[in-house]
């Protein structure tokens, strides 16, 4: 048999990666306390710094609970993000300082991807960030990248929690402190840890009513003095309870029904227009994952976090990190400064190796979340949605059922569930996602990633730590095709784009191999 080989490949990525549209020495993503401190420190040392932050976020994303769980409790002010800019600057004086120091500050700008050369990705001339605003996307090359992307909300659902009025503590902070655009009046807060206490104090300080703090464990878990101070202000601390259902009307939540965990038939009712989830926050590690940085599970720092040295260095030489995205509980300002100094040193610029103080470990966040999830599951049952976007109930998740719209049922599939799957090897959330579609939705699993993992652990009776994180991939913000589209694609890409590998011999009919018809088709090239 004679071997017919295709022409040399001109369709591979080699030589097609465009030079970035812009370039910066140091790029900082996230303009919270950590990112601002990093940008300021780097600018003071004379570095050329670009600081990126997505706030004020476009109304479309706010409506999708991206990046935080706003729960439909933003005022109409968020409809005009350009008018919120001033408010955002006012709320964050460090941004102004960065600006004064010559930092190139970009607000309402999403970093939707980030890449450095590494295994499986060669040929980049520099590290690259994918950026976008509401109308277009572009690329920014960097020498050093500092990620200070903060934390997002942890959502645990209950009946009725997919209606307006159920929101996260991070979103509450963003709407109150950053935007001055919170539409609620009276809150029930879930959790009694430091996050819940922060949320309650924030709300009270802004003249809102806090009806109660609800706790699944038998007693409040946070600082007793702060809990007592809240109680003295009329906030009820209701332990041993979890939400059974949020009641609602046309504007969303009007009340919350609680179940007594020890005696689930006993209910309590709270009048409120907002239920604020403050059981936990999740370090925002999306870009670390896209970059391929090493990560690890640190339950006393909030969950999956990048592996970061004391100076903020990650497993990737050109990437540094600071603040909540490296784990909850650090001093964000101190960490931001340290990360900037480490980045500067790595560029050969003089900067002291002054390290931030060691962070004392916080409580075991995973154990706490698991207690909540267990109580919610046992009181609320299997009908509650585990994934809102894809309409997957807890029961369907635990039974590993294919989505309802397939209308599929068979004895074979009825015999399958998480337990049988676990017999084939350790459970994997990405596998469950593919089978049930839980976490496959448009919110990019921000509302369900953690609770699906918790439900899997409970359903299969395995430790929550054993469930691997479902990976994050670009784009880390759900942006339209028209925005992400490369409007000014390099000619090399446009001319040598092939639907597959462009191996002509691959597409020649078997019967024609070795015949005159093969030669004819080789001459004609690929059909499309």
């Amino acid at each position, binding site marked *: 048999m004679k071997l017919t080989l295709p022409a040399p490949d001109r369709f591979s990525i080699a030589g097609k990666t465009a030079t970035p549209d812009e370039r910066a020495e140091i790029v900082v993503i996230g303009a919270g306390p950590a990112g601002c401190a990093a940008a300021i420190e780097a600018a003071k040392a004379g570095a050329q710094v670009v600081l990126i932050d997505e706030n004020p976020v476009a109304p479309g994303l706010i409506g999708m609970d991206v990046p935080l769980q706003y729960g439909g409790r933003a005022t109409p002010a968020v409809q005009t993000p350009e008018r919120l800019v001033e408010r955002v600057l006012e709320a964050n004086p460090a941004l102004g300082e960065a600006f004064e120091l010559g930092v190139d500050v970009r607000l309402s700008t999403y970093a939707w991807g980030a890449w450095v050369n590494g295994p499986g990705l060669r040929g980049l001339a520099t590290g690259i960030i994918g950026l976008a605003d509401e109308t277009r996307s572009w690329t920014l090359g960097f020498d050093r990248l500092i990620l200070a992307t903060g934390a997002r909300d942890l959502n645990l659902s209950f009946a009725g929690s997919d209606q307006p009025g159920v929101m996260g503590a991070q979103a509450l902070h963003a709407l109150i402190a950053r935007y001055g655009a919170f539409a609620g009046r009276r809150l029930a807060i879930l959790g009694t840890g430091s996050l819940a206490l922060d949320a309650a104090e924030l709300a009270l300080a802004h003249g809102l009513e806090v009806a109660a703090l609800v706790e699944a464990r038998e007693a409040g878990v946070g600082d007793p003095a702060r809990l007592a101070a809240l109680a003295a202000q009329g906030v009820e601390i209701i332990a041993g309870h979890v939400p059974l259902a949020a009641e609602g009307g046309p504007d969303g939540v009007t009340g919350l029904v609680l179940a007594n965990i020890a005696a689930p038939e006993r209910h309590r009712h709270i009048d409120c227009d907002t239920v604020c989830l403050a059981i936990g926050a999740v370090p925002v590690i999306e870009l670390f994952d896209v970059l391929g940085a090493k990560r690890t599970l640190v339950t006393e720092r909030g969950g999956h976090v990048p592996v970061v040295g004391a100076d903020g260095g990650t497993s990737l030489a050109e990437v540094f990190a600071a603040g909540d995205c490296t784990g909850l509980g650090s001093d964000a300002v101190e960490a931001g400064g340290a990360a900037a100094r480490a980045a500067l040193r790595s560029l050969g610029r003089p900067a002291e190796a002054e390290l931030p103080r060691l962070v004392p470990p916080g409580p075991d966040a995973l154990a706490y979340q698991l207690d909540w999830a267990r109580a919610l599951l046992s009181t609320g049952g299997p009908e509650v949605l585990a994934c809102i976007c894809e309409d997957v109930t807890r029961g369907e998740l635990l039974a590993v059922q294919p989505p309802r719209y397939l209308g599929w049922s068979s004895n074979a599939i009825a015999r399958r569930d998480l337990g049988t799957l676990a017999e084939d090897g350790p459970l994997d959330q990405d*596998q469950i996602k593919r089978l049930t579609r839980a976490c496959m939705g448009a919110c990019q699993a921000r509302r369900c990633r953690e609770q699906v993992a918790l439900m899997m652990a409970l359903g299969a009776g395995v430790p929550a730590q054993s469930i691997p994180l479902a990976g994050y991939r670009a784009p880390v913000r759900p942006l339209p095709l028209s925005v992400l589209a490369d409007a000014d694609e390099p000619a090399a*890409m446009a001319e040598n784009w092939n639907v597959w590998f462009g191996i002509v011999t691959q597409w020649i009919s078997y019967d024609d191999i070795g015949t005159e018809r093969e030669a004819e088709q080789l001459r004609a090239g690929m059909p499309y």
Partner: protein
Amino acid sequence: MAKSGSSVVVVGGGVTGLSAAWWLARSGVEVTVLEKGIVGFEASGRNGGGCTHYQSPLFHEEQRLWPQMDELLGYPTEHRSGRIVFQVDERKANFHEGLAMRIPAGYAWEVLDGKQVRERVPLAGDNAISGVQLHFGGHANPQRTSQAYAWAAQDHGARIRQHVAVRGFEMAGGRVSAVETSQGRFGCDALVIAAGPQTGQLAAMLGHHLPMAPARAEMIVTEPLPLMPMGGVDGHGLYGRQTLRGNLAYGGGPHEWYDDIALESPPPRPSGSVLRGLAKRVAELLPRAAHARVIRSWAGVIENTPDGRPVIERLSSPDNVTLATMSSVGFGLSPASGHAIRDLVVDGVCSFADLSKLSLARFAELSPDWRRELNWLPPETAAASQGASR
């Protein structure tokens, strides 16, 4: 030659190995699949789901089987029949002429003008210039299909062992008698190697040169949109489909060649570097979907032989080994490739197709420098950005 009661080990839990296991198990053969990760977690669960491969000797069997697969397996594959391919670039207006040379007789298809395309593809726009509708072929959900094979094989008694990496073979009397793995030794009467891009490395351990090169390819997926009457719609340098949930899932464009990949650990699969090129083309192909939000991308690592054609062969020595690599178009053909492998293992010959032209022997004279000559090389890393990992 493997009779009922004898045991076959299949290396690789992708669609090729899983389908083979299912076919073998259905024939009463005792079979064990050894998969270093999770079933269908590599290319088999990351592809475009296309099931329309008229170039292949397995084509007729592919077309015969797909419409029955849900029922045969007992699990959903989301298979749907038919495809529309259309173009929006003047230079490709007559692409159907190229197809006419290739589509075998007996399969119905028609040429569409721009207006007909718009009537049949609600998300298409004024720029649609010409298309074809195939009344054969189709698409399925790769992830669901991979798991369906695994479960169906189990239902017929097959054992699926995940997280078991094969690292060598034990020989006795000129045949492979056992497989060495990260989890110990598995005895076997016959062996199937269907390890995707790693098939070449494993074949080399048995003294066979199966030239292959791994590469990474990417896809993107949007939020769900209202369902079009037909989901199997592509063209304009893209392959893909609208899923039954309504998401648009498309791939195409540049691949990245890898030097090699590890035998026992998963390959790196960074994604996103072709995302903007894909987004641009999906928005051009389906302008009425331009507003749709992209919610994910992914990459898969694929095998390719130098001529891009499969190898599906029962070796003569050791004669109880069957090699199978589909050379980057193995999802759609999997119902048929598994059948062919079953036949080779049990009967020594494929009952429904001639596979002789796909023999390994064709590579006997291949230049050792073939990857360089074909330009199948990883991009060079610019010196300035050698991102040393710490």
